[in-house]
């Protein structure tokens, strides 16, 4: 440690350098922005300008900042949730029995359908305050981010290498130290990647959750989402374009300033024993590493975190690492199950009562048919997107120069909230009098198709050179090459991308099957439109039914198609 500080002092460069100036500007700008937003969130709802949106482009930077901060509030909440929920599920066998399936279900529930009700809930917590609306929006984003992060962390906790676990026990690390020295670092690469995926999904939700109608009232939180909503009402295509531009800038900034450096930094925690070729550091990370002030600040933060994680806290009595000496007690198991019974009974009772008064079998039948229609859309879209992007992705992935350029672009496009791109499409449908049942459909994959592209690019780029050479040497070409060489080679990557894409498409159905342009409203038949319609009418029973059936479809889709495919790919088609 001492010899690290030595050269910096020896050079006598004590004056801040140019980068320090840049850094100071950035830091203070962020602080001012935070204060401004904080003031905005704490005013009463009926205060002047509290929920008023203006289409003046000059307001866009301010709106963009507020939208972004909502995102970060949600991601912080998701991280807190991840560190607690996943830890509880991984460390306690009994809790895990309940918590893991819950997480699995929550992952496939389209929360977008519940937006109205969460808004009502949070407004009742802070009556008459903008804070209630803000929290509702943050909650909506949170629900789109937290589950996969928690899952990734849970899986990391379950796969901590046995020798490191033994080493930490034999060197007397306490539970707390073990968590911060071993388990969290081990989970970092997966967690960072999933956080990035979550952020991409989150932009979609933040835009959808800023303009919310509750009964007859429509609230608009200052932000890019409500700006677009207003532009749609007023048929102002220029404003829509401005918003798209602003969003492009925001995503570019967050991508470059935050996630590129974060991903590069997380490579340090990758569990591998050999040094692999790594890409160049992103420019932001270079600045951070070269700027004296930022370096000192980073060092201070680092040692604070280190001291925090190094605290010799212990929540459980120290014990040996073997599982053999604390056998699970069946009596306690039975007691835990018994405690669950009343809760379940209560839930079933209320559900049955609620459903039997409000809904009939005919409703279920109708929703099921609509679900089939939406499923057909998802299947056709994923198939089409695959047909288009797999060959393109392979072509790009096999050319390293192109892959390096396209990969960030595809990730960037995946992060862009596709709902901002809806208005131009709607305008086209209206002016050419196209059939909404067909032409609204592509909107569902507008944002999610990129997952297929960048996963296929990654797969093709990782395809071993010797196998390529072997294929060339034996003159394997044409269709045979696709069937025997490259498609099996990229299959597990493709499945990963397709799972994300199809999950996102189901969710997008709720906003993509009903779109409006001023007073013109285009509706496609499907479960998404059904849920959106019920939400508009405030018909809770039908929202619940619609969301439940959609969750069921997503769950079955995952269990019957994607999981077996993924398992097969992992077993048979991985090159390791």
């Amino acid at each position, binding site marked *: *440690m001492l010899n690290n500080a030595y050269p910096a002092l020896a050079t006598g460069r004590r004056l801040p350098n140019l980068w320090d100036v840049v850094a100071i500007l950035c830091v203070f700008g962020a602080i001012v922005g935070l204060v401004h937003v904080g003031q905005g969130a704490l005013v009463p709802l009926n205060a002047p300008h509290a929920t008023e949106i203006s289409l003046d482009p000059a307001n866009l930077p301010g709106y963009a900042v507020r939208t972004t901060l909502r995102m970060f509030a949600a991601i912080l909440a998701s991280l807190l949730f991840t560190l607690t929920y996943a830890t509880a599920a991984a460390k306690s066998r009994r809790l895990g029995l309940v918590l893991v399936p819950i997480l699995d279900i929550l992952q496939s529930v389209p929360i977008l359908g519940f937006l109205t009700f969460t808004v009502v809930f949070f407004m009742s917590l802070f009556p008459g305050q903008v804070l209630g609306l803000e929290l509702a929006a943050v909650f909506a984003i949170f629900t789109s981010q937290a589950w996969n992060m928690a899952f990734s962390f849970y899986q990391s906790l379950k796969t901590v290498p046995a*020798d490191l676990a*033994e*080493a930490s026990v*034999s060197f007397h*690390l306490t539970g707390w*130290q073990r968590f911060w020295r071993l388990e969290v670092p081990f989970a970092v690469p997966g967690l960072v990647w999933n956080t990035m995926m979550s952020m991409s999904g989150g932009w979609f939700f933040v835009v959808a959750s800023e303009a919310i109608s509750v009964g007859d009232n429509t609230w608009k939180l200052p932000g890019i989402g409500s700006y677009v909503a207003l532009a749609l009402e007023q048929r102002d295509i220029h404003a829509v374009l401005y918003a798209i531009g602003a969003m492009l800038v925001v995503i570019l900034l967050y991508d470059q300033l935050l996630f590129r450096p974060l991903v590069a930094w997380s490579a340090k925690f*990758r569990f591998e*024993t050999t040094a692999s070729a790594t890409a160049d550091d992103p420019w932001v990370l270079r600045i951070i590493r070269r700027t004296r002030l930022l370096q000192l600040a980073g060092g201070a933060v680092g040692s604070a975190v280190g001291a925090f994680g190094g605290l*010799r806290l212990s929540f459980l009595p120290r014990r040996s690492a073997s599982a053999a000496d604390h056998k699970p007690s069946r009596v306690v198991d039975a007691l835990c199950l018994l405690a669950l019974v009343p809760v379940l009974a209560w839930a079933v009772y209320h559900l049955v009562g609620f459903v039997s008064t409000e809904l009939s079998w005919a409703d279920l039948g109708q929703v099921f048919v609509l679900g089939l229609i939406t499923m057909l859309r998802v299947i056709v879209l994923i198939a089409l997107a695959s047909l288009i992007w797999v060959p393109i992705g392979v072509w790009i992935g096999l050319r390293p120069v192109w892959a390096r350029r396209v990969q960030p672009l595809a990730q960037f496009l995946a992060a862009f909230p596709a709902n901002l791109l809806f208005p131009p499409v709607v305008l086209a449908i209206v002016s050419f009098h196209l059939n909404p049942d067909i032409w609204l459909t592509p909107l569902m994959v507008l944002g999610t198709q990129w997952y297929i592209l960048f996963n296929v690019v990654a797969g093709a780029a990782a395809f071993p050179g010797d196998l390529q050479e072997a294929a060339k040497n034996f003159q394997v070409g044409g269709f045979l090459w696709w069937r025997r060489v490259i498609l099996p080679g990229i299959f597990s990557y493709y499945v990963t991308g397709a799972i994300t894409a199809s999950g996102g498409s189901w969710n997008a159905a709720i906003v993509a099957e009903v779109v409006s342009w001023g007073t013109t409203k285009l509706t496609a038949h499907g479960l998404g439109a059904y849920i959106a319609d019920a939400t508009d009418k405030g018909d809770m029973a039908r929202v619940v039914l619609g969301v439940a059936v959609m969750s069921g479809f997503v769950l079955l889709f995952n269990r019957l198609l994607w999981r077996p495919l993924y398992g097969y790919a992992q077993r048979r088609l991985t090159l390791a």
Partner: protein
Amino acid sequence: MDTIIAAHPTLLEVEACRQSYRKDAGNADLVVLEDVNLTLREGEIVALLGRSGSGKSTLLRIVAGLLKPTAGRVTWRGEPIKGPADGVAMVFQSFALFPWLTVQENVELGLEARGVPRVEREQRAEAAIDLIGLGGFESAYPKELSGGMRQRVGLARALVVHPDLLLMDEPFSALDVLTAETLRTDLIDLWSDGRLPVKSVLMVTHNIEEAVLMTDRILVFSTNPGRVASELVVPFPHPRNRLDPAFRQMVDDIYALMTRRPAPGLRAATALAPAAIAMPLHRVGTNMMSGLMETLAGPPYEGRADLPALAGSLQLEADELLPLGETLQLLHFAVVEEGDIHLTDQGRSFVNAETDDRKRLFAEALRAHVPLAAMIRQVLDERWNHRASAVRFRDELEDHMSPDYADETLRSVIGWGRYAELFSYDEEAEQFSLEDIE
């Protein structure tokens, strides 16, 4: 030398230690360690020598407080061990370094866990790093280092806490020959000079020469169940010379010990076992088997070889050569006794045969001497569709051995059966069949 050590205070005492675990459905306990006794005093290096599966690593983990024995007493300085004891530090076969911590941070880890203040931590870490020859690498991450340097970090991390007892779990087996030798001599030099801040060392190894080169006392373990077959005192002063005839003689004797002991044990185990199919098989490839038989048949061995010499010239460790020899013995292709191996008539005819005949001979040997293989083939012959799930065989094996051994045994028999064209196996469906078998 042993008289001097006998006067030293006792550090560790293991009495009648037994480690077994019960399968959920099974009726019999699976015994890993049986009736092991060990006394360790200050000032000695002791080796636990044995084949894989002899329970020596299990014993080390019990001493480290990572495992609790099923029965028996383990005391550290007179106190029963409950969890990792203070004054015991461990070096791992896989190094077990934290890839996100630098060399310095890895070394400081144990001190940090004990709440040693930062300044003292850094000083002691520097001292340990310099002692073990890692000076200059403080800020490197493990993945930037070679295997030898990584294990030096593992050593420094253990030494920095100034343990009374240093535990080493096959510390050099993941390293190449030259690197391992450098590390061994460096460590012994430090020990002989009294510069190693430890009072005693307990190391697990399957390398016979390593044990004779480094330690004062060797406990030779037998397999199934693991127990101490014999205890030897190594009388040579350091530095030791591998080419010294007395050294060679000791290595030869240990080879003889290790090849003599398992045979009666194995026979007893099969006699006691409820089903003969539950014989643990070693994962030995058919290419290795034919290679060894061809080598044995050719000059200079002409059918008979001394195992240590054979191991040396083939660059195989005892842990690799002994299972190979035993498998050939099981198939009646060779006989292993008293540290020697010689080909049988079946072995010779195998060597002289062409591919198809070799397969036929191998299939005959399998059906005659490997009950599991014979049983699989019999079941397949009896079934109308000539198919059988591997799960039932696995379950049956797991009634008599740990899941890991059951898996290894099943994989061995699959490999041999495929080579012999006795049956075929579909990995995806986990199914044996007679497809492609004429």
